[in-house]
């Protein structure tokens, strides 16, 4: 059965809130888009409407956390991480409060809303904040597992979600441990590293590639990053490729490049959104235009393999 990441997010948060009265959901007037509305339907007392005012919403969460609640603050990723960045840093991260920040509609896939709504820098922004944990699950099942871990672990955390409705629960292992990556395929020619919603498309690419031995690692936690797993995988291959629905600079590709340049110099080929603003478009158009559709990722890999040989 196909359940989207956002549907599963809303459903599971409602469940957590039912079981734990400390959990409160703060909405910035997007509950019916982010699916935070599930919580209002199921346990109305746990839902707080903060209106279209992200800075205040983050500050209110800090105050609630200071008196013992665990607020989950939800908005579109771009508004939450940029409009309220100083508030996140000062009121949430410096205080080390147990506040969960949920950036729904991350990346490119925001339903034809255009560049005002794309969130292509949130990994860069959020991973630079001390005390902040950054999590980007690949599918609905892993989202639930990640939310369970977030609920049980105190501290400021950012959950990066996608609006994509087409990703099935494809991971064989939906277990999740904060700070741990997962090896999805073993291989000796190249290692592909991915995170969040991109992992599904990479897995589809690998199914189509013949005559090449491809390893695939998925990192649902971007901070703290599972350096050991990356080094273990990178040692076995000639080339490391990163793929992400984020600007090519500042995200997963940068994290991987930094680690490898210090510990295991190796060529890294990064696939991500170039340094430019984009127009609106369908999911398919935007992914294709930025080299992130299954077809385009496959083409890039084929070209890199030719260079390798």
């Amino acid at each position, binding site marked *: 059965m196909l359940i989207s990441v956002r549907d599963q997010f809303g459903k599971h948060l409602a469940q957590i809130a039912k079981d734990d009265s400390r959990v409160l959901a703060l909405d910035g007037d997007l509950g019916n888009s982010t699916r935070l509305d599930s919580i209002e339907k199921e346990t109305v007392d746990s839902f*707080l409407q*903060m*209106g279209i*005012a992200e*800075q*205040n*919403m*983050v*500050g*209110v*969460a*800090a*105050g*609630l*956390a*200071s*008196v*013992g*609640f665990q*607020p989950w603050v939800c908005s579109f990723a771009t508004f939450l991480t940029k409009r309220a960045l*100083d*508030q996140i*840093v*000062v*009121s949430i991260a*410096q*205080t*080390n409060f147990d506040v969960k920040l949920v950036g729904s509609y991350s990346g490119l896939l925001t339903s034809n809303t255009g560049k005002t709504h794309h969130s292509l820098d949130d990994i860069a922004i959020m991973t630079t904040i001390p005390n902040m944990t950054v999590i980007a699950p690949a599918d609905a099942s892993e989202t639930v597992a990640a939310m369970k871990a977030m609920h049980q672990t105190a501290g400021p955390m950012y959950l990066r979600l996608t609006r994509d409705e087409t990703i099935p629960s494809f991971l064989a292992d939906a277990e999740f441990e904060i700070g741990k990556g997962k090896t999805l395929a073993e291989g000796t020619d190249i290692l592909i590293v991915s995170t969040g919603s991109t992992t599904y498309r990479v897995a589809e690419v690998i199914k189509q590639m013949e005559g090449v031995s491809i390893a695939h690692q998925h990192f649902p936690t971007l901070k703290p990053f599972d350096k050991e797993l990356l080094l273990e995988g990178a040692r076995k291959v000639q080339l490391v490729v990163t793929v992400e629905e984020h600007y090519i600079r500042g995200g997963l590709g940068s994290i991987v490049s930094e680690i490898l340049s210090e510990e295991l110099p190796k060529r890294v080929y990064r696939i991500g959104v170039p340094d430019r603003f984009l127009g609106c478009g369908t999911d398919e158009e935007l992914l294709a235009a930025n080299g992130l559709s299954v077809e385009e990722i496959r083409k890039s890999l084929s070209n890199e393999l030719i260079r390798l040989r």
Partner: protein
Amino acid sequence: MLQSNDQLKLTATVLRKRILSTAYYKKQGHVGGSLSCADILVSLFFHQLSIDPSNPKWEDRDRFVLSKGHTALGLYATLALRGYISEEELKTFDQYESRLQAHPDMTKLDALDMSTGSLGQGLSAAVGMAIGAKRLKKDFQVYCLIGDGESQEGQIWEAANIAEKYKLDNLIVILDQNGLQQYGWKNGDKRLNPECYGRRKFESFGFETWEVDGHCMEDLIAVLTEVKGRQEGHPKAIIANTTKGKGVRFMENNYVWHSKAPNDEEYIMALTELGEEV
């Protein structure tokens, strides 16, 4: 802790001296704004707040948020007088890894209910605490001291909006309306700061409001006593008209004293003005 108004006034004078001596010793600190809110801090910490210095994290204590976090100096000097920290520790103000950071850091000093310093953020946190208190069915009050300068930040009004919606009659905002800020309007006498109409603004956001002379201890005590426990369903705002640098004539209404420490001569002059008997 109940002091008579005369005792409170004396305490406020001692507080002003501590503010000045700490700034003089450290050669820095936001003196002007700390002096403008000195009487307010005394009226809160020595009369109004239900707190216990021997148990700073007492669950049912009233909360206090210094939203205008740059006047941490005034707050620390108050906490020293109230017995949370020693007079000696005041000397560590603004030093590397001191509990007394230049801007309040609750992770260092457990007497603080919130970390602040980037202006406009404290009131939102206070709103969160007040919503939390209602949900927990706790009687504690949440006091938030804001500046008129920082009220130029839109977040203050985002917070005010929500305070009305959630009927936070356990939230008491005190506006230190001194008319001056670091550089913006400069002439405090003429009240050029566009945020100097705090009462009108908070009223329009659904607050129950009072306007007092923020240096008249009797008025401060009277209004704080009146607002406490009033359960009318409205958040409350006390507009305290104050003078930046209050108590030291050459500092009063002079924007250069926003963040400046006195030199030897100025320090002696200031202490003389404040009287040597305390």
